[in-house]
């Protein structure tokens, strides 16, 4: 708790944490390199049909009906419940495909089949969305780098951005490892992770900045330990409440935002850790000193008593 005067020696475990982070990032990159991402329809293009059966069908039956009708490449899975069936077809087909497949399913099934949704994404659109997505993540990182460098100092900016990249890579690595679909909503979640984890990093960085100027005579490592201890309560509470909400979202939010909630859960979990260890240990490695912040001292006075 923040009231307790006892200072936790976070930085004593700095080497272990750095090793752990580096190992996780490396593992994620290797995993991504070998298995890649299970891109969703948004990025690959193709057709997806979700239907609701009155009585749960046997998936093998649905598959054989579809391949008998000439759709051998159809992937058939349950979605959410066993009466809900998702059929996915690769690209290179016509936009009319959705209705045709729906027709086959309705004809061949004894029970009532209700259309839930059809999605068709042309190959070109998929490619563009992929490019835009990558651009969005990159842009977000660059803008953050500039803002933090302006408001704080370049060393803080580097720390924050490395922490963000760390969170994004590990989250994406997890998606690759487990094989969850990576679609547009997951991408949005990743960007939200960037925003959120940044929030955390800034709060920690802000306290480190304040203490560096206030607590002269302590070593940098000590100052960082004090700052982390002081903010730990807040970090855990905020992450805790957000994670609570995300668990609610993942459990009852419905199938369509399930992967969104999962991405945020992982990302914010990792983000909480990285705001403590990645940012702070990078600041120690870069040998941050009170002198780095002298220029900003004056600037701070201006915005002091606004609220």
């Amino acid at each position: 708790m923040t009231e307790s005067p006892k200072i936790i020696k976070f930085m004593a475990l700095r080497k272990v944490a750095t090793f752990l982070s580096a190992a996780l990032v490396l593992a994620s990159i290797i995993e991504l390199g070998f298995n890649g991402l299970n891109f969703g329809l948004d990025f690959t293009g193709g057709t997806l049909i979700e239907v609701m059966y009155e009585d749960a069908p046997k998936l093998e039956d649905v598959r054989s009906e579809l391949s008998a009708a000439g759709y051998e490449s159809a992937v058939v899975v349950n979605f959410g419940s066993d009466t809900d069936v998702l059929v996915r077809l690769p690209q290179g087909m016509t936009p009319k495909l959705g209705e045709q497949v729906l027709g086959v399913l309705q004809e061949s099934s004894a029970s009532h089949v209700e259309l839930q949704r059809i999605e068709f994404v042309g190959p070109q659109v998929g490619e563009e969305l992929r490019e835009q997505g990558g651009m969005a993540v990159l842009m977000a990182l660059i803008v953050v780098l500039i803002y933090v460098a302006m408001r704080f100092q370049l060393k803080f900016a580097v720390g924050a951005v490395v922490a963000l990249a760390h969170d994004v890579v590990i989250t994406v690595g997890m998606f690759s490892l487990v094989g969850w679909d990576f679609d547009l909503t997951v991408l949005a979640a990743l960007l939200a992770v960037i925003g959120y984890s940044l929030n955390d990093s800034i709060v920690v960085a802000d306290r480190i900045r304040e203490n560096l100027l206030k607590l002269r005579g302590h070593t940098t490592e000590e100052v960082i330990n004090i700052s982390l201890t002081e903010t730990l309560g807040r970090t855990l509470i905020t992450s805790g409440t957000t994670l609570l909400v995300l668990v609610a979202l993942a459990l009852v939010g419905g199938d369509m935002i399930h992967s969104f909630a999962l991405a945020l859960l992982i990302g914010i979990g990792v983000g909480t850790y990285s705001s403590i260890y990645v940012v702070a240990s990078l600041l120690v490695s870069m040998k941050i000193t009170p002198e780095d912040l002298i220029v900003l001292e004056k600037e701070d006075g201006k915005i002091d008593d606004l609220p």
Partner: protein
Amino acid sequence: MLNKYPLWKYLLIVFVLGIGLLYSAPNLYRPDPAIQVSGENSGTVIDQATMTRVSAALDAAGIEHFGEAADASGKSGLVRLYDKDMQLRAQKIIQRALGDSYIVALNLASNVPDWLLAAGAQPMKLGLDLSGGVHFLLEVDTDSAIATRLEHYTTGIKKSLREEGVRGLVSLDENGVIHGKFRTEESRDQAYSLIRKNYQELQTTRDEAGSESDGFALSAIITEGKRKEIEDYAVSQNLTTLRNRVNELGVSEPLVQRQGRNRIVVELPGIQDTAEAKRILGKTANLEFRLEARFDAAPGDREQFEFRNPGNGEPNAWLEREVVITGEQVANAQASFDENGRPQVNITLDSEGGTLMHRVTRHNINRRLGVLFIERKSRTRYERDEAGVEQAIRIPYDEKKIISLATIKDALGVQFRITGLDNPGEAPELALLLRAGALAAPIDFVEERTVGPSLGAENIAAGLKSVQIGLGMVALFMLVYYRLFGGIAVLALGANLVLLVGCMSILGATLTLPGIAGIVLTVGMAVDANVLIFSRIREELASGTSPQHAIDQGYGRAFVTIMDANITTLLVAVILYAIGTGPVKGFAVTLSLGIVTSMFTAIMGTRAIVNLIYGGRRVEKLSI
């Protein structure tokens, strides 16, 4: 005295909250499922008699309904239903009863009281993932529009060189470059200045001769500005055409919007029959230019057509059966004014059309030339199938109406104009129809998303539930951990939700499933500011500061941190909005609005309550 707010701050907070409540209130009134009836053309009046027929048809089918009312303007009428599942059946029954001259559309009838509507308060629109419906992304094949234009230029250049007696070879390659080859340098230069003068939209360069046998060459490409103009034109023309067609589909609130360089988004809430929607969107309207029939023409050679907009003159006219040119040969049509300030429509044909037009008109000066607008429509016939179930069968047919009948004053070519229009408003409308008839560039479907209505309802339910559970858990935690201050933060959180929903309603933002996720996430994150402030206050108290000072210091110190943290998150949200499409945009909107409103409620809102409770008196202990 510490921790007292001036009166105006309290008033401001009450005012903002009041506005928030007012504008979020309409979302509490759930709309009734309804069927909207309107006439297929503006002449059809919807009155009480029409609505009585609708009522009778629904009664006969045993569908419960209420609140039938015709609009005061006579343009549309509405009947409300109790059961959403009955909507599609009711639509079919009413269509059957009224016939094809009426458009019968699914609708949601608002239940928002008039005083709220009068204040401009509207409920949030639901995205397709929540309401059900179809989303199409169409791509306009602008390359083919440019290719057509380039061919037009090539023929034009050939013709003008021939007229000026410049000998050379002009050709168009597959990269869209026009090449000219000439024997002498002199004729090359002559051609060069001729093209420069007549075709400013082309960028012409003299080419270095490779060898003696190549002679002298020049090349011309279309300028970037002109290319963009052609693309814009093709897209906006398709946009107009699509809007007209969407109206025909009978959807209550369709969206047809340009997206990016050459794409068009079409969103049709409530539509389930995607095949039908695609057929209507993808069909082509067309034009036919025909001469007016002579009085002595044989009956087999002439045909009678109605005017589309019968003015004061004759209601119909006789045209020849033979077609001079069709809409495919129309490259452009624009309204403008002639040298005397009278309205006119300038028409540009492609070279083939120009040749045909010239050949026919030069021998027919002083006769009248008619323009027919052809729309593919369908009428419904009802038949019983073998099982005795009545089936609706749609029979497509072409409807041809005259949109212009003007006297030929001179032989017409690639470019000509229609004058003698009655009023200035007529010119843009005629130009629009001419353009709508000639689809400038083909369109393709590149993306389609259909969401069934039951899935939409499920999504709403799941979203609401997760907001409730998330809010409940956070509230419980805050109350236990920060006691009275926690309670204040929970109040602020509630106010934040009201403000967020109010802002989204004011901005007319569309609520989507990712948008709901954004709201849920905001709930989790909005308490962050309060946690920061409260832990600061606790720290100050622990270091022996007096309670009043601790409150002041806590808010003051935490403010800078909160600002920095929120501004960076806001930056990311803005990037999301700028780069993302559809669902991502919805998420970005709620996230950024949530950040702004949460700053207001979590800092100013809680401070106001804290000041009311603790401000201006001696306090020994804080409940924190």
